[in-house]
């Protein structure tokens, strides 16, 4: 046996920064160390390590040197030091640098550094680079080797104490969940063998005769997240059969009955108690909140262009007579809390598989992402134990989405970022995927006799118990006990799956497809075979390594796998197609007509479950819910902050500030369909309200995508929060020229621990807000998902996230030329505000950042909003509108400032002319109120009258004009100037956060 170690360091080349010890990775690490607040941070150089294990020991050194030159390093910019240890020895001591001149580099690093830290991935944590390296080595005819990767950090400048090293290891260099750190001369042993385990088959779990406490203990010990009623139902089901369940059966039930998979709160029985401020109460029983609110809205709107709603992996609407558009948004919160990069990557990877698993497979064309984090500048002493710092979560999540989405070649273009301290221990990561699908491929069916194929990645121990893990609260221990729930993604494997799947779809080689998400095969096969039955031969599934038990294979959430139902006659063609694209496609069983889920491992039967019990047997126990209607506290306005200073503060507020740092890291134009970008205006930095894409090259039809979210209102009034989120999601579409009559919505409820009645109460109210707003605006829901139990427990205290409702929206327009951007276009135009400004500052950013309190959260006059949106759409389509923007967070003042600095065109505004201003006795209320259903429009002088004629029965008025001077000037109700600010200064405030994050 020979173990080769290749260490790659960068060196000078012309054009590289002088002294390439300042490699970008090293600089980034130095910046992270500075962000810990260290006064005397060490200099850092980072090298890449590759361990190549040659079991035969027969590969000669020249071949490894060649590989170092052409594969592992770049001779122009890097050096590579090679050493070898044979038969478990310590190495030949001869570390030689190859691959170009400058060979002294590696030795110099070792000699001059005060410390070095080697960061290795833990056993079982796969780095996709390893598979690529093995492929490259095979092309060089070096076969039969294994590869592991690592990074090495060299520190310069001073000695580091043990406590400093420990802090660096945990906070900067590694994530202990997936990595380990070896300092200085500690032996470095790359973990190659990740197999092990018994490879066991059947294991029975004793339930017969257990009392309640013992049943709960079985659930807790097995991380099943099943409650007592569920455990009792399972016990009695198997008692009736005269046997105990097998481990695989119990796990299947736990996965299928998890909150994550079956939404037992949203579809359960809720006893909802509503208590008025005076004490009067009303108790109602809600039987299936989802059906009563979200689905009811869709039924009532009854839009003919809704092609598939709620029953598939994504909702589908019509693009035209031939194509449909699918849309799904998911959350991946708990994994992202523990391992932000991997958690977010698998989050986007998972929702893309929902697109691939919709109908017979949709082609993903856009990703969306919305994140909620703790404040990025949170002082370290406010960080609860067990939580990662929000800045680290932010950077990790953005990188995870970036690397997965960019590698898949899907533009990530629409999103939002929200910050609140209650997200510190429990960040929210929403990932969305939009796809395009032929309308004749939307329906799928499974027939008995169809073969079950698994397409794509191999099965390993990654992600065991993800579904049940996401259904419980996080604690400070979560990062320790749940490391198995962290999945590792490989975007390239998923891209290969996409390439095969869509070709197979177009040849109709399969009849149904779904993705392996939470619950792995158990959910995918259990769901596809629910109406007929299935027989699975678990030992046929291709494994990443040996030793997995039957149950592990069955519930593994290893990524990048799709399950297909394939008519036997098509099997050969499918296998040949997959082979031509280098993708594994393996026959693991068949669908049957037995109504049973039969699992085999070799000859042994490890499970035999009735599909009926699996899908219908879960007991529904009423859940308590209470909503205490809060008395509206009178508004207490900020004192001592002038409107100009307030505007600067608001523009710099994290929820409002530029997201350019995030947006530019995503490829938002790949596929060449982007016709309205997220960053708008001549400086390409204005915050667009929506993005648009033309899904076909032979048509100018466009889809317009946006979202709405307002956690700030949720504390005051969850019903109004929901109205606001829906209104915002629709008006963002309208602001870009989208058709409000063709808007479809998606709901994502991320809530605290709904086992607490008062938290569930808010959810019920918000769901009703969604229903009313969707019906009122004529915008149906087509898909949704909830993520409950977002509670973080630390130091005996439970921190629940704010009620967080994300509404995503998508619209279709006939002609992309009807789109409009938000940047002001030219001086000399009128600014028209449509919609009424009310004194609605409860939950506003103005109060939050400038020190106000109380007040009412904004409501929505639904019939009026619907008419208003239709008229704005008409005006835009008629070519009357030069730019449009949506006043939302920060109100009218922020909206006009954004339009002005995005367009490099000045603006003047008069508070007295704002519709509704007469009823308000304060300028700041007019400027910063976040009233819904308003749009600010830029209109050329000759179009002012035609535009206003469209709004004779609605609040609308000319409130200002665009000017040559690059300033924003606002007059108060009495005509005096209350804001007079330079546009560049305003833009600088707005960009401060993004520029800070860049460092």
């Amino acid at each position, binding site marked *: 046996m020979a173990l080769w170690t290749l260490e790659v360091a960068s060196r000078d*080349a*012309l*054009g590289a920064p002088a002294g390439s010890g300042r490699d970008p990775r090293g600089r980034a690490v130095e910046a992270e160390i500075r962000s810990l607040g260290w006064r005397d941070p060490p200099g850092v150089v980072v090298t890449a390590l590759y361990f190549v294990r040659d079991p035969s020991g027969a590969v000669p050194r020249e071949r490894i040197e060649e590989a170092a030159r052409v594969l592992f390093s770049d001779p*122009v910019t890097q050096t590579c030091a090679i050493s070898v240890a044979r038969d478990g020895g310590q190495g030949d001591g001869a570390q030689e640098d190859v691959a170009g001149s400058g060979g002294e580099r590696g030795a110099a690093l070792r000699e001059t550094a005060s410390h070095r830290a080697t960061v290795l991935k833990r056993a079982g944590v796969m780095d996709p680079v390893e598979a690529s390296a093995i492929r*490259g080595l095979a092309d*060089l005819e070096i076969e039969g080797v294994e590869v592991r990767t690592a990074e090495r950090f060299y520190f310069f400048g001073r000695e580091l104490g043990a406590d400093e090293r420990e802090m660096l290891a945990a906070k900067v260099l590694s994530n202990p969940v997936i990595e380990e750190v070896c300092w200085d001369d500690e032996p470095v042993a790359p973990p190659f063998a990740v197999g092990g385990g018994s490879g066991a088959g059947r294991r029975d779990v004793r339930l017969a005769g257990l009392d309640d406490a013992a049943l709960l203990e079985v659930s807790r010990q097995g991380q099943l997240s099943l409650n007592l009623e569920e455990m009792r139902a399972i016990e009695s089901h198997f008692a009736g059969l005269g046997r105990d369940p097998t481990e695989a059966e119990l796990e299947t039930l736990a996965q299928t009955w998890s909150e994550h998979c079956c939404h037992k709160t949203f579809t359960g029985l809720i006893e909802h108690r509503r208590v008025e401020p005076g004490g009067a109460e009303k108790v109602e029983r809600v039987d299936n909140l989802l059906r009563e609110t979200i689905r009811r809205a869709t039924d009532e709107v009854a839009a003919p262009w809704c092609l598939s709603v709620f029953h598939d992996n994504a909702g589908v609407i019509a693009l035209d007579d031939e194509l449909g558009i699918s849309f799904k948004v998911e959350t991946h919160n708990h994994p992202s809390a523990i391992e932000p990069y991997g958690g977010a990557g698998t989050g986007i990877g998972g929702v893309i598989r929902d697109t691939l698993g919709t109908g017979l497979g949709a082609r993903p064309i856009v990703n969306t992402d919305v994140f909620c984090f703790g404040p990025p500048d949170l002082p370290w002493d406010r960080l609860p134990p067990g939580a990662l710092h929000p800045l680290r979560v932010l950077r990790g999540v953005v990188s995870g989405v970036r690397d997965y989405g960019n590698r898949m*070649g899907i533009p990530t273009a629409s999103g939002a970022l929200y910050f609140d301290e209650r997200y510190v221990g429990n960040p929210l990561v929403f990932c969305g995927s939009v796809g395009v699908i032929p309308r004749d491929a939307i329906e799928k069916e499974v027939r008995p006799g169809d073969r079950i194929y698994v397409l794509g990645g191999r099965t390993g121990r990654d992600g065991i118990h993800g579904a049940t893990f996401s259904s419980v609260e996080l604690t400070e221990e979560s990062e320790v006990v749940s490391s198995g729930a962290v999945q590792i993604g490989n*975007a390239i494997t998923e891209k290969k799956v996409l390439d095969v799947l869509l070709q197979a779809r177009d040849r109709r080689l399969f009849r149904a497809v779904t993705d392996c998400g939470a619950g792995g095969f158990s959910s995918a096969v259990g769901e596809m075979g629910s109406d007929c039955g299935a027989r699975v031969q678990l030992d046929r599934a291709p494994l990443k390594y040996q030793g997995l038990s039957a149950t592990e294979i069955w519930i593994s959430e290893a990524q990048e796998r799709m399950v297909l139902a394939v008519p036997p006659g098509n099997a050969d063609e499918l296998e040949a197609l997959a082979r*031509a694209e280098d993708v594994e496609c393996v026959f693991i069983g068949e669908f049957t007509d037995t109504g049973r889920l039969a699992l085999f491992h070799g000859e042994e039967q490890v499970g035999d479950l009735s599909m009926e019990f699996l899908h219908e047997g879960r007991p529904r126990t009423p859940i308590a819910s209470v909503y205490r209607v809060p008395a509206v506290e009178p508004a207490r306005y900020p004192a001592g902050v002038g409107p100009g200073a307030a505007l600067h503060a608001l523009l710099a507020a994290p929820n409002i500030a530029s997201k350019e740092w995030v947006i530019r890291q995503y490829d938002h134009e790949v596929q060449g369909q982007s016709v309205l970008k997220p960053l708008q205006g001549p400086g390409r930095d204005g915050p667009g309200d929506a993005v648009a894409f033309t899904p076909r090259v032979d048509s100018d039809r466009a889809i317009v995508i946006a979202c709405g979210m307002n956690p700030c209102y949720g504390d005051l009034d969850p019903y109004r929060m929901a109205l606001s989120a829906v209104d915002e999601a629709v008006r963002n579409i309208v602001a870009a020229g989208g058709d409000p009559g063709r808007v479809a919505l998606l709901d994502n409820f991320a809530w605290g621990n709904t086992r607490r009645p008062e938290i569930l109460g808010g959810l019920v109210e918000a769901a009703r807000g969604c229903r009313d707003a969707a019906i009122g605006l004529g915008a149906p829901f087509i898909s949704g998902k909830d993520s409950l139990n977002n509670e973080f427990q630390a130091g005996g205290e439970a921190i629940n996230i704010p009620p967080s409702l994300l509404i995503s929206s998508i619209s279709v327009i006939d002609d992309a030329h009807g789109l409009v951007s938000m940047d002001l276009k030219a001086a000399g135009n009128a600014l028209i505000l449509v919609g009424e400004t009310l004194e609605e500052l409860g939950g506003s950013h103005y109060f939050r950042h400038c020190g106000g309190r109380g007040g009412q959260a904004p409501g929505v006059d639904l019939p009026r909003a619907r008419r208003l949106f239709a008229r704005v759409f008409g005006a835009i389509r008629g070519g009357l509108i030069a730019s449009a923007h949506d006043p939302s967070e920060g109100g009218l003042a922020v909206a006009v400032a954004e339009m002005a600095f995005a367009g490099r065109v000045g603006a003047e505004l008069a508070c007295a002319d704002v519709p509704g201003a007469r009823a308000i006795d304060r300028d700041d209320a007019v400027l910063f109120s976040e009233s819904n259903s308003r749009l600010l429009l830029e209109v050329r002088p000759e179009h002012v009258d035609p535009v206003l004629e469209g709004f004779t029965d609605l609040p609308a008025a000319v409130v200002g004009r665009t000017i040559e001077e690059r300033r924003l000037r606002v007059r108060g109700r009495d005509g005096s100037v209350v804001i007079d600010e330079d546009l560049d200064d305003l833009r600088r405030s707005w960009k401060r956060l993004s520029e800070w994050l860049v460092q």
Partner: protein
Amino acid sequence: MTCRALVLRTAGTNCDLETAHALELAGAVAERVHVRALLDGGRRLDEFQILVLPGGFAYGDDLGAGTVLANQLRTRLRDALERFVADGRQVIGICNGFQVLVRLGVLPGAPGGIGEKEVSLVENESGRFEDRWVRLRAETSKCDLLERGEILEMPVAHAEGRLVVRDAELLEQLRENDQIALRYVDSDNDAGGGADPGYPANPNGSVDAIAGLTSPCGNVLGLMPHPERNLRALHHPEWTRRRVAGTTRDDWRLGDGYRIF
């Protein structure tokens, strides 16, 4: 005669559809072919007049952008590729494709075809992936796909696009050979000859603001920006402004990027 273009794809290629569309707009018959079909001998390079290596992340860009695919082409298709280049057929590498050509030594290349690896496309000076529109000036008169002095706008979207060269001598040689195909410029330097405009006009810190290279004979072009993403007015980030100003006319083939195809 119809011109046949091969758009090479492999695991992680992701700009193949829009690149094929651009070639079709330009009148070629474009076929997206998996590298495996070439390696297995099922398809041959010499069936085609144009070879395009489109953007993406071939094999995840693991071990450095373009490395694994370049290694595969060098070890298993070197002769066919060398003949293709030496015959004077057209090769275009866009973004990841440019990275592959550089890693292979097809660019800057040698008069006979494939040369040594002498330049690299390394991590951006900013240390981050960035998607942003850039302004390019065609600098060479060697390459049929470009007209010296023309200004082209299109986006870049990459993390590893900073061109570095082995040494100053090589850079001088590239200039003398007229192999610098495209440079990043800012809007006051359309006439050329100016200094490196610096970030963000030069989005990655490339030496001499080089955005693209051509081979000694001019038949190979590699560039980091994406011409296939600016084929029509609607692709441009400022089309809504131009419409208001009355200066927009939208049709396929009217985007700057089309001129490359």
